[in-house]
């Protein structure tokens, strides 16, 4: 997994405090409007996101860059591939 500081994030969504399925919804909405090749980050404090977000990215066939733990939340980063 790359360092978060090495990645250029094009769109940064703060979904902290939002409950399942909120952060996943934010990610899906964000991906819709992001140009192909763009990198999206979603910050989530919902423990369900750790499994839900990678599962959706895989299903939707985008590129999962990684999960970066922060204080009390995690930033999930993915690149839109199509």
């Amino acid at each position, binding site marked *: 997994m790359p360092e978060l500081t090495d990645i250029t994030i094009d769109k940064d969504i703060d979904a902290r*405090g939002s*409950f*399942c*399925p909120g952060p*996943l*919804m934010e990610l*899906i*909405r964000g991906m819709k409007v992001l140009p192909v090749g763009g990198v999206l980050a979603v910050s989530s404090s919902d423990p369900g996101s750790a499994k839900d977000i990678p*599962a959706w990215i895989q*299903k939707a066939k985008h590129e999962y860059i990684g999960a970066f733990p922060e204080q009390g939340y995690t930033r999930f980063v993915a690149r839109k591939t199509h």
Partner: protein
Amino acid sequence: MEDRMSIIVYSGTVDKLMAVATLATGGAAMGLDVELFVTFWGLEGFRKDAYKTNMRISKDFEDYGPIMMEQMMAKKVPSWMETLKGAMEIGNVKVYACSMTMELFDMKLEDLEPVVTEVTGVATFVDRAKEGKMTLFI
């Protein structure tokens, strides 16, 4: 088998409608078509504007009702209707009203929230559900 999740929405209490909306979102997110067949007390929950004032919760956990509502407000949990609309935004989600209940309660399609688009019979629902991968009764 088709990639479809069918849910029989029998209950009209907020806790169960939240479960319906959340599961529908999960289904829509993972690429399943989602069909809700709303019957009996579920239709009371889908009456126009009812979701704004409906505070009913399941009888077996009735004593938890006020605290649940309080927590939902404090944590700004979206209403189940907002969650359901979100599911409709990201995927193929259809809501059907049970014709038998509609007649029983003298309801018309226009009495219901606009997310309900069609009135259908049980046989049609079952016929479609049998081709799907998942059927839930809530």
